[in-house]
């Protein structure tokens, strides 16, 4: 049994088809979800987090049906940690108070054990010293970490993180990667991001989503391999048939896709190159040519 099983899952908002017959399964390990704005990443994560229901298709979480009985849904939610893409914070709450509130909603009823757990997750995201500070007085990145802390309460078996690294400084991102890869050994971590470096550094598996459909599903190495021989470095401005190109800091042009420009030297593709090629025409939504 997989932790998450989605079969032909479809979700529409009015006329927008946010997810179109998506089949995906996840189990232990860290899976990264890449895709341009509006690809359907948040929609997919919200379905897995039981925040919204799919219109059609079958959703199985820990072998249970979230549309089934209330008891079944509650069982799933007990094993779930969720970091929404956007989260407001009641201004007068402290970091500790915020996480404690969520802990009560997650049925940590014993005061002593709850306080220890809240402290544990705050330490885990490096906020042990700021626990008594009001959330409204924290920086954007610190606030994001408070939100992350609540998702980690109680070591969930499914951890759904919608853009967890947004707004974090490099040190914090490195810390988060360490925390998440440790968690990945025990539970299914599903995260969306716009940062290909996060995926390369952290995820065993990568899923590329665009226009509500799965474009790629496999290991990071396999995705990079799809771009072999299609990326070059050259001195001159490339022709117009390149998918994307930009002038790097060294003054040379990094060219992805198309026909190799004269004098171009093939170079090792990065995950970002492969991702852009995978998206094809949609790539311009991700990185406009410089």
């Amino acid at each position, binding site marked *: 049994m997989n932790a998450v099983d989605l079969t032909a899952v479809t979700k529409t908002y009015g006329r927008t088809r946010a997810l179109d017959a998506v089949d995906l399964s996840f189990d232990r390990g860290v899976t990264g979800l890449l895709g341009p704005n509006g690809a359907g990443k948040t929609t997919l994560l919200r379905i897995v*987090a*039981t*925040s*919204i*229901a799919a219109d059609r298709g079958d959703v199985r979480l820990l072998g249970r049906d*979230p*549309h089934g009985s*209330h008891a079944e*849904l*509650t069982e799933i*939610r*007990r094993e*779930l940690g*969720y970091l*929404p893409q956007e*989260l*407001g*914070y*009641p201004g*007068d*709450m*402290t970091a*500790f*108070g915020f996480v*404690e*509130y*969520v802990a*009560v*909603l*997650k*049925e*940590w*009823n014993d*005061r002593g054990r*709850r*306080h220890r757990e809240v*402290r544990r997750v705050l330490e885990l995201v490096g906020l042990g*010293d700021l*626990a*008594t500070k009001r959330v409204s007085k924290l920086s954007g990145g610190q606030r994001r970490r408070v939100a992350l802390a*609540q998702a980690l309460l109680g070591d969930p078996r499914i951890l759904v993180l919608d853009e967890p690294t947004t707004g974090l400084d490099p040190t914090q991102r490195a810390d988060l990667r360490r925390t998440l890869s440790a968690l990945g050994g025990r539970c299914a971590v599903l995260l969306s991001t716009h940062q290909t470096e996060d995926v390369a550094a952290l995820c065993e598996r990568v899923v590329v989503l665009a226009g509500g459909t799965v474009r790629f599903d496999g290991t990071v190495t396999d995705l990079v391999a799809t771009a072999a021989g299609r990326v070059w470095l050259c001195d001159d401005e490339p022709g117009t048939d390149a998918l994307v190109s930009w002038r790097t800091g060294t003054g040379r042009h990094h060219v992805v896709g198309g026909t190799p420009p004269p004098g171009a030297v093939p170079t090792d593709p990065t995950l970002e190159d492969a991702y852009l090629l995978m998206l094809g025409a949609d790539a311009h939504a991700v990185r406009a040519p410089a």
Partner: protein
Amino acid sequence: MTTTWHVHDDLLAAYVAGRLDAIVGASVEQHVARCAECRASTTPLVDPRLLARGWDGIRDAVESPALPLPVRLARRCGLPEPTAVLLAAATSLRTAWVVGAFLALSFAALAVVLAGGELLAPFLLVAPLVPVIGVAAAYGHQQDPLETLVVTAPYGRTRLILVRTVAVLASVLPFTVLLGLFLPGPAWLAAAWLGPAVALLPTLLALSSFVGPRVAVAVVALGWSAVVLFSLRGLPATWPVEATQQLVYLALAAMSLVVLAARSSRDRRIGAVL
């Protein structure tokens, strides 16, 4: 911490024994609070049990936010501790309390101004709506900042709304009951207004499951106002709460409960009806 400086053994001993002046003491304390290593070296100097209890106690006192007064009072009356944490955090509840208190106070003021005059109709207009407005406020904003987390937590949004509803009723009803006691006219009036109040609540909840709390509260308030205003056209002032009408309210309440039950069993939306 990353500092390589640590508190000297002699200094530490003086600190533990309370022999340092305020300034040196404070800086030692600040360092010790952040430095696990120095904390460890104070251990042999202090009774370990006292130390463990001390740190936990201090952290608890500093970190866990104080509960607001009404919640502390409720705690005294047996409110479970986790529920108290939830209620303390609900900004929307504060709004409910403010609204409830405001309505009750303005009504008391009105009573003073109009003493002896035609008081019954305004009372009957306002009193049953006070809990309804309070409960609508207890839903919290549609854009409640924590809404996403409330929906996906095992505690459940429906249960949270019901807990808030009870909290609002508990804090608002005594006001209105007290005011009712001071009303001129037959004594049964003081209790009679509870009939429509009790009927309007499930109506509000049932309507909210279709159109959301804001529209629902507006519809309920308009509907009830229409009943009271209708009674002003030549009927006795007690008409809205007389026996026949009470039966109608009872039927309305029963119907709303049936609707709620039907919707909660059929709805495919995750997170139940409310």
